[in-house]
């Protein structure tokens, strides 16, 4: 049985582990070690990291259903906020490095290209999640409303994986794996809801 304290203690280590890739890529970018097309590489790495972290937050909820791992849920907020952190870096790489703040072009790009539309909406939906992540906010909104807002993580995950799926030209194995995991995690939640004892009464 892992206690809340066990998980809380692992937080500083996890924090450094999840932060580290961003520092490494920033360093590699500045020193010219991100390959032949560094902006593309940076954008891909940041985006993939964000998608993986989003999926991990969904997994944490599922894992917390297993008795000995019940307390793992205390890690969810930090990982969720890191997902937002990586999405922000991914998005700013696109805006600043890839398109040099050419807003006219960027707006056109977001409207016209479905994969960018998916990614952008996913990013927008993450903003209310990140900004209501404090204990204080949960109190102010009330747990019920707060929980409702945080259901947004489902469209966020689906749109983010679609963003990746459409981007890939051929061999969609990797995005399909992510989509599959997301669908399984969602099915598990639906199943849980349907089999909840109070609904049976």
């Amino acid at each position, binding site marked *: 049985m892992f206690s809340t304290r066990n998980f809380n203690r692992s937080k500083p280590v996890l924090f450094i582990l999840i932060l580290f890739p961003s520092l490494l890529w920033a360093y590699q970018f500045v020193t010219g070690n991100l*390959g032949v097309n560094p902006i593309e590489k940076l954008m891909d790495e940041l985006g993939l990291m964000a998608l993986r972290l989003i999926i991990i937050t969904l997994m944490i909820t599922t894992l917390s259903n297993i008795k000995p791992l019940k307390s793992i849920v205390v890690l969810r907020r930090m990982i969720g906020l890191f997902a937002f952190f990586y999405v922000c870096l991914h998005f700013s790489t696109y805006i600043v490095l890839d398109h040099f703040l050419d807003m006219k072009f960027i707006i056109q790009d977001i409207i016209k*290209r479905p994969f960018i539309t998916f990614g952008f909406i996913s990013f927008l939906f993450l903003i209310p999640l990140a900004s209501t992540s404090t204990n204080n906010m949960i109190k102010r909104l009330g747990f019920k409303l707060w929980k409702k807002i945080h259901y947004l993580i489902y469209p966020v995950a689906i749109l983010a994986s679609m963003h990746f799926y459409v*981007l890939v030209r051929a061999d969609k194995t990797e995005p399909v794996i992510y989509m599959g995991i997301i669908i399984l995690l969602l099915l598990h939640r639906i199943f849980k809801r349907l089999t909840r004892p109070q609904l049976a009464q």
Partner: protein
Amino acid sequence: MKILGSEITPYKTYLNRRKFIKGSLASAMLATVTSSAFANHDSDLSIYTKNLNENDKLNSYEEITTYNNFYEFGTHKKHPHLNSGNFKPRPWTIKIDGLVKKPQTFDLEKILSNVTIEDRVYRLRCVEAWSMVIPWQGFQLSELIKMAEPLSSAKYVQFVTVFRPEEMPGQQKRTIIWPYREGLRMDEAMNPLTILATGLYGHEMPNQNGAPIRLVVPWKYGFKSIKSIVEIRFLDTQPETSWETLAPWEYGFYANVNPKVNHPRWSQGTERRIGEFKRRETLMFNGYEKEVAHLYKDLDLTKFY
């Protein structure tokens, strides 16, 4: 814009130069183990740079050979460089069939002894909105077409890439329908800009760039420039091409570089030149408008993209 000139080099001289370059490469590697294996090009860049357009700069050998789309070796840009070591580009034959006087199979060496190898410095624009400037060595496709003696009914040329899943690990997975196929209209194929390339930077064509012989059509998106060609067919109808078959709403038969016709995934208005930080404007027909625009004067380029 300036027409890209080309230095005519007889094949023998070209081979000798290649030997010289290889020799200097070996000695350079002996001298300093730590220095990059690509450094030897710096000494004789002038052969290529004098053919350069003023806004262009040659991409390095390393850039050209480590960042490739060649799905036969895998779908990541680095895969062709990493996974092409087992590919054997010699001996090599090219089968000529379809609407020709006499279908036949040519030995590559025989083809090469009948053509003039030239230096051609071309911009390469990928449909993914990145580009490079590459010093190719090759000969005009028109020379091979003359050798093939097509019938007057031949209106199109189809090209087929080799299928060797044991040497090309990407072919073990059905990411696209193998073998890769491409095609050109006869007048496009006969255009003097269209070449079959057998080398770059004075080296024999590296495996990851389409050894031993590949097409280069500089005014079209990179995927038209089919690699490792084993068959050329002459047809009277427009042939199927790989990307068009896979996603016809994204990739057309013509695939001319055109900043005004958008792709659902990439804006084609701008591009990133590999090695540059800021994007640059994409030029109509990749800057070869003067040489090829007349081919399409009766064609609606938004419909036939």
